[in-house]
């Protein structure tokens, strides 16, 4: 290959470049293509935004602590949540019973954490059932549109216009109250809002190029729906889920208040508060800890959910 030489026989560049700088590189030396800065995926971006939100992070940490305590609280208390001690009923908090005892002499500390666990489980299972039904129905409505959408939407409309708490109460009156039936009853109408959110998302997404590309490559509807559309709608789905959990916890507490909650000897925070309420003027401390815990859990879920929504969808932020 001929080299280019100036009149003076030496290549001189005002920037001090010499011939050596214009040598052809072999493949290993091509660094131009290498991404120097770590690439930030959408998830990482959301996580960075979430991490900078100190209220949301504090809520997350408190929630994790609550979950850990719900798992181990009973064993560190040294008392069983069921064991009754008629010599020590309605005791004030002490070194033996950290949160006091209830009317049957059961340790409130052990029961509070056990109840927290049950309340959290009700919230999580209800969210899970909502997720499964809501995503499937909403996905079908949004993706297929037309008559299918019309009919499903009408059914949702009718179900939605029935006040959900009434249906939940009626169902629990008929079925025996237990965690399982409470979750089922809450899910009967709970999935509808999820379905509508998924539907809206899918309707926006289904005309994107990557869906067309996937279809022209011969992908089936199911594959397009579950591999392309729903993963792209995951942000709003997660946000809706975080909001479902506190709603379900509250609904369970409300049912407990009507005597339709988790049945004794098991306890949820709602049933404990309801029991404590009857003797509140005399033994107010029995009410204190379950009430604080349920409020704290709901507070953290709400703040965390808000933070998550801001992180996943910065456009929504106000």
């Amino acid at each position, binding site marked *: 290959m001929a080299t280019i030489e100036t009149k003076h026989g030496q290549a001189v560049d005002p920037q001090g470049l010499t011939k050596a700088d214009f040598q052809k590189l072999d493949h290993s030396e091509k660094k131009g293509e290498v991404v120097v800065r770590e690439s930030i995926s959408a998830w990482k971006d959301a996580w960075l935004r979430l991490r900078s939100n100190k209220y949301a992070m504090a809520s997350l940490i408190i929630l994790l602590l609550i979950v850990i305590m719900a798992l181990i609280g009973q064993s560190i208390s040294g008392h069983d949540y069921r064991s009754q001690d008629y010599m020590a009923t309605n005791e004030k908090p002490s070194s033996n019973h950290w949160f006091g005892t209830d009317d049957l002499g059961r340790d409130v500390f052990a029961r509070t954490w056990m109840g927290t666990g049950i309340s959290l489980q009700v919230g999580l299972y209800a969210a899970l059932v909502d997720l499964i039904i809501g995503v499937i129905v909403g996905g079908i409505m949004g993706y297929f549109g037309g008559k299918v959408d019309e009919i499903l939407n009408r059914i949702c409309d009718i179900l939605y216009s029935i006040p959900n708490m009434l249906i939940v109460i009626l169902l629990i009156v008929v079925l025996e109250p237990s965690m399982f039936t409470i979750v089922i009853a809450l899910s009967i109408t709970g999935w509808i809002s999820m379905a509508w959110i998924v539907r809206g998302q899918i309707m926006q997404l289904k005309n994107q190029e990557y869906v067309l590309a996937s279809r022209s490559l011969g992908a089936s509807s199911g594959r397009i729906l579950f591999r392309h559309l729903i993963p792209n709608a995951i942000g709003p789905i997660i946000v809706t889920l975080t909001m479902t959990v506190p709603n379900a916890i509250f609904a369970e507490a409300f049912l407990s*208040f009507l005597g339709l909650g988790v049945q004794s000897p098991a306890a949820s925070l709602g049933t404990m*508060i309801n029991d404590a*309420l009857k003797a509140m003027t005399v033994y107010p401390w029995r009410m204190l800890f379950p009430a604080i815990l349920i409020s704290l859990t709901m507070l953290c879920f709400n*703040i965390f959910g808000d933070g998550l929504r801001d992180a996943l969808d910065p456009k929504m932020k106000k």
Partner: protein
Amino acid sequence: MTRYLLKKLFYMVLSLFVLASATFFLMKAIPGNPFMSEKEIPKAIRAMLEAKYGLDKPLWSQYLTYLNNLIHLDLGMSMKQQYTTVSSIIGTGFLYSLQLGIFAIILSVTAGIVLGIIAALNHRKFLDTFTIFLAVLGVSVPNFVVASALQYFLGVKLRWFDVAGLNDITDYVMPTIALAVLPAAFIARLTRSSMLEVLTADYIKTARAKGMSGRIILFRHALRNAILPVVTYIGPMTANIITGSVIVEQIFGIGGLGKFFVNSITNRDYTLIMGLTLFYAVILMLARFFTDIAYAFIDPRIKLNSRKEG
């Protein structure tokens, strides 16, 4: 508009029909009936009781009678309180619940809007953060916790108010606050975010550039537009106040609908449960219906015949 409203009405009736049928068959699905008790009732008396309530007829005939009675607004007799119709129970209870509900709505709307405005005007300052915190707290603390805390501190400890009952005007204070906390918190958040949006709008800048006073801008230009989303909240607010009243009435011992509802559930008074469920449903549906209409009247940009998306 008329067509849209007729359609809405049609779906309301359809929903009510579904609910009525669902409650009927659910109640029938419960094993046993209210005349079963620990004490053995003589067969003849039991047969007479069953005949009186029509329980001896086949299911489909009971269902048809029930629907027919519903059309004539006859909700039947209470199964536990003798010689009392469900309608008369609803009549006595509703008065208290309605009074409380109206007080709670007035309190929550005023408190919510005022807090929302304060927060929006102090955007990202201390008062804003503080108000948001209050609002999130209000949404998070269940109302039975609020109600019992009020009862304990204001009623038992400070003795400012009577612990229970609804005999004079001061007795309304605690139940009203307990009912209003949740909706007020929601309204505060709604007002804040829509105020923030409106305050950056061009017409506000124009008004300011024309040299109008802050007060006129705030009340005549900003608030009027910012209030719109609050109107959409009327429906959910009614639902919240109804569920709230069930708890609050029980805690404060008020003989309203909520208390009857709880009692009907614990007593398994099926006709009363069915009647109250339908009554609540009608109120809620009417609230949603009027929200739709009110919204279209307040905001001419909303076209009622456009279909809901998402």
